[in-house]
Structures are given as structure tokens and as C-alpha cells.
């Protein structure tokens, strides 16, 4: 393994600063290296500790991050992980999430630079989610767990500092979103009546994996009354049917999150595939709900095969293909689900956690250098 001091020798690879928390934070903010929150100064010692859980060369890029196409080397990722407050054992998952979102179908350039408010959402599956104590239950998307908060934040810092998603320069989002600070959860596999997301997407159950989605924030779906699968699915489909979503215009892959209670009811008689089929068929709204300008300028032009002469009752589908709907079971007690539309021009990517020699990793300990 290369000596860290050697890697930091080239001009610009490191900087010297007084051991002063306030001063270093001021310096980082002035240089635009961060998300606005205080950072943990990435000293050589801390970065080296972070890299204890890296089984590859520290200066070999694992991906290039759009829109700057900056090289995401383990060394750079480790500095961002330290800044975010990660524990070293989180590091393999950070690397995996970055690799996944840099795969072509995800369209990281679009997700980063668009005026839309999307951010990469990372859903973790498999034994590593438990090992790292990633929240999948109550308040899974909210505060409280170090793994969710800091791995998600490290991803954002890498998107900013390596990918160049600088607001107004590389990130043109009209609004941004709180999910651009941190957006990482685990699926609540133990409370799910169905196969876990990573298994559904082709990986063995014993694998640990991330699925990344170019996602909006969550929209809550309240249904305290439905006692049947069809009832809950009808409520979810209704919430999916809105006029202002990007997903209307793409072959999009939006996410439906069911709480364990809703999932349990839906699973009585419905497989995941059947639930998706129901949602795709029922998540529609009549063309007449769209503004006349959208009908004339978009539907009748871009989708002319279907809508050139369609009347106001012609159905517009929230999602084009049932198989494109992603269902995950997340959360604690409560009769809620959530809908997460996407950027549209992005595909979800699932990637398994593997050691450098290509074996499925059962534990992050397998990445630890002796």
C-alpha cells in the first residue's frame, strides 16, 4: 500500500493549517469545500484511519464524478468521509454508493446539474445495513443515527467537492432540497413481507448492496382506513397521479415506500410484481387535468402517437411500465406510505458490496487492512 505522505506530496494535494477547529472551518467555507455545516478537519491521521477500511490503491480512481468529472480516489473520498463525521468502517459503503451513482444509466450529470430538486437516494440492503446500524425503522429518513447521517453527508460532500455540484455553477437546482445534505436509509427487511429490494433486483440474499435513485423528497401517503390491499394501493395510486412530476414525461422509475403495516396488508394476496401492476394501471389522471399549454405544446407534440387527438378524458399514466416502479419497505409503526418521484431521466442502479478480488463481502471487516 502506498505511503500516505507520499501521495500528499504533490502541490495542492494537501495544505497546512493551524490546529484550530474554527480557523480550519472558516478556511474550508471560504474555499467552498463543504455543505455549510462545520466539518471535521481531515488531518492526515484521520484520513489514514478512514483508509484502514479500504482494500484498494488509495490513489486509483473508483469513478469520475459529474459534472466536473473529478476523480473519486479512495484518498479523496476518505477526506470527505472524515469531514462528514464517518466512522472508518462506513468507508466501503461510501465507495460502493459513489461507484453505483457514477454508472452510466444513473445519469449523474443530469441529476447533479439539473434545475430539478433531485438528489441521489441510497437504499442499503443486506447484512451490512445491520452491521453498520443503518436506520430502516422509525424516522429512517430523519435524524438520529450516525451511519445514515454521516454516510449520506459524505456522499454529498463528494458530490460537491469531487463532482463539482457547486450551487449555481455545477448544481443548477431551482430550489435544492434538504435531501441534498444527506439521503441514505436501509430497507426494513425484517418487517417486509416480500423479498428485499436487492434480491428482487437480482442479487443473492446474503449480498449487501446499495440501490441509488435520482429522487425527489418523500411525499406522505396517509391511509388509516383501508383494510384491503386494493384499498391501500388505490390511495397510493391516487397520490402518484399528479400533473407536475418529471416522471410523466420519461420512462421513469419512481419509488413507492410502504410502511411495514401497509406492506403487510398489501401482501395479503399481492406479490410485489402484482402490486406494481395495480399501481401502474391505477395511477392515472385525465389529460384534461393538465394545463391547455401543456396539452398543446407537450402531449400533442412529444407524445403525438397517443395524444395528438386525445380528448380530455384520455388517461395519462404516472409511470409507463409496471416493472419500473420500485417498491421498498421502510419505516416504523404507522399507517403511512410515501411516494418518491424522480428526476425522470435517470435509472436506478443496484450494486453489490464486493472485495477487490470480486467476492461478495459479508462484512465490512473484510475490507480492513491488516
Amino acid at each position, binding site marked *: 500500500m502506498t505511503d500516505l505522505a507520499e501521495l500528499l506530496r504533490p502541490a495542492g494535494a494537501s495544505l497546512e493549517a493551524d490546529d484550530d477547529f474554527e480557523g480550519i472551518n472558516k478556511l474550508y467555507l471560504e474555499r467552498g469545500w463543504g455543505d455549510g455545516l462545520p466539518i471535521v478537519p481531515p488531518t492526515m491521521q484521520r484520513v489514514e484511519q478512514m483508509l484502514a477500511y479500504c482494500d484498494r490503491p488509495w490513489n486509483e480512481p473508483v469513478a469520475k464524478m459529474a*459534472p*466536473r*468529472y473529478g476523480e473519486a480516489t479512495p484518498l479523496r473520498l476518505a477526506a470527505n468521509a472524515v469531514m462528514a463525521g464517518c466512522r472508518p468502517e462506513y468507508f466501503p459503503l461510501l465507495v460502493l454508493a459513489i461507484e453505483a451513482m457514477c454508472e452510466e444509466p444513473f445519469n449523474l450529470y443530469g441529476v447533479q*446539474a439539473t434545475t430539478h430538486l433531485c438528489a441521489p437516494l441510497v437504499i442499503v440492503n443486506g447484512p451490512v445495513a445491520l452491521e453498520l446500524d443503518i436506520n430502516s425503522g422509525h424516522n429512517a429518513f430523519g435524524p438520529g443515527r450516525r451511519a445514515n447521517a454521516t454516510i449520506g453527508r459524505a456522499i454529498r460532500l463528494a458530490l460537491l467537492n469531487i463532482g*463539482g455540484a457547486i450551487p*449555481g*455553477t*455545477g448544481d*443548477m437546482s431551482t430550489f435544492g432540497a434538504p435531501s441534498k445534505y444527506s439521503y441514505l436509509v436501509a430497507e426494513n427487511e425484517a418487517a417486509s413481507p416480500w423479498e428485499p429490494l436487492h434480491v428482487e433486483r437480482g442479487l443473492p440474499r446474503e449480498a449487501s448492496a446499495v440501490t441509488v435513485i435520482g429522487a425527489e423528497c418523500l411525499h406522505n401517503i396517509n391511509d388509516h382506513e383501508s383494510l384491503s390491499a386494493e384499498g391501500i394501493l388505490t390511495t397510493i395510486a391516487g397520490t402518484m397521479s399528479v400533473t407536475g412530476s418529471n416522471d410523466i414525461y420519461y420512462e421513469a422509475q419512481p419509488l413507492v415506500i410502504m410502511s411495514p403495516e401497509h406492506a403487510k396488508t398489501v401482501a395479503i394476496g399481492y406479490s410485489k410484481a402484482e402490486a406494481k401492476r395495480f399501481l401502474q394501471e391505477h395511477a392515472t389522471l385525465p389529460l384534461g387535468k393538465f394545463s391547455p*399549454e401543456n396539452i398543446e405544446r407537450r402531449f400533442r407534440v412529444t407524445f403525438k402517437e397517443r395524444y395528438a387527438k386525445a380528448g380530455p378524458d384520455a388517461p395519462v399514466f404516472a409511470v409507463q411500465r409496471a416493472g419500473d416502479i420500485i417498491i421498498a419497505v421502510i419505516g416504523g409503526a404507522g399507517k403511512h406510505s410515501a411516494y418518491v418521484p424522480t428526476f425522470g431521466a435517470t435509472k436506478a442502479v443496484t450494486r453489490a458490496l464486493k472485495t477487490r478480488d470480486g467476492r461478495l463481502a459479508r462484512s465490512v471487516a473484510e475490507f480492513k487492512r491488516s
Partner: protein
Amino acid sequence: MSELRKRGLVTAVICSDPFLKLGKTQAKVFGVPDLPLVMIPHPLGGLSLEQVEGRAHVAIPQVVELIKEHAK
């Protein structure tokens, strides 16, 4: 576009005002920092055909200028 520029063709990216920084940064990223940006007013969405023509009238003189420069 950067590849065309590298081949010496007259090239430019049409860019509305708020996207100037993104355009300049991307040009640098792709190794053509001098890539011309043809600037037009924002927005692009929701324009009438007349307004689109208006944007074209802003862009055309800039394109003509690029061709003239290239011919020198």
C-alpha cells in the same frame, strides 16, 4: 461539442444567462476552455414561437461573428 471544437470546426454552445458559469466550467472540464458560448436571455421554457424567434435573433449575430472570426 468539445470534440467538434478540437477538430477546428466553428462550434458554440447556446446558453441562457443563468447557465453561463455551468457552460464555462463544462467547457474547461472537456478541455476546450475557449469554447464560445452563444448567450441568450432566460428562460427557454414556456416561450411563444415569436419569443423563440426573438432568442434566435439574439443568437444569430453571435454565430455570424464566430464564422467571420473563423474565416480570418
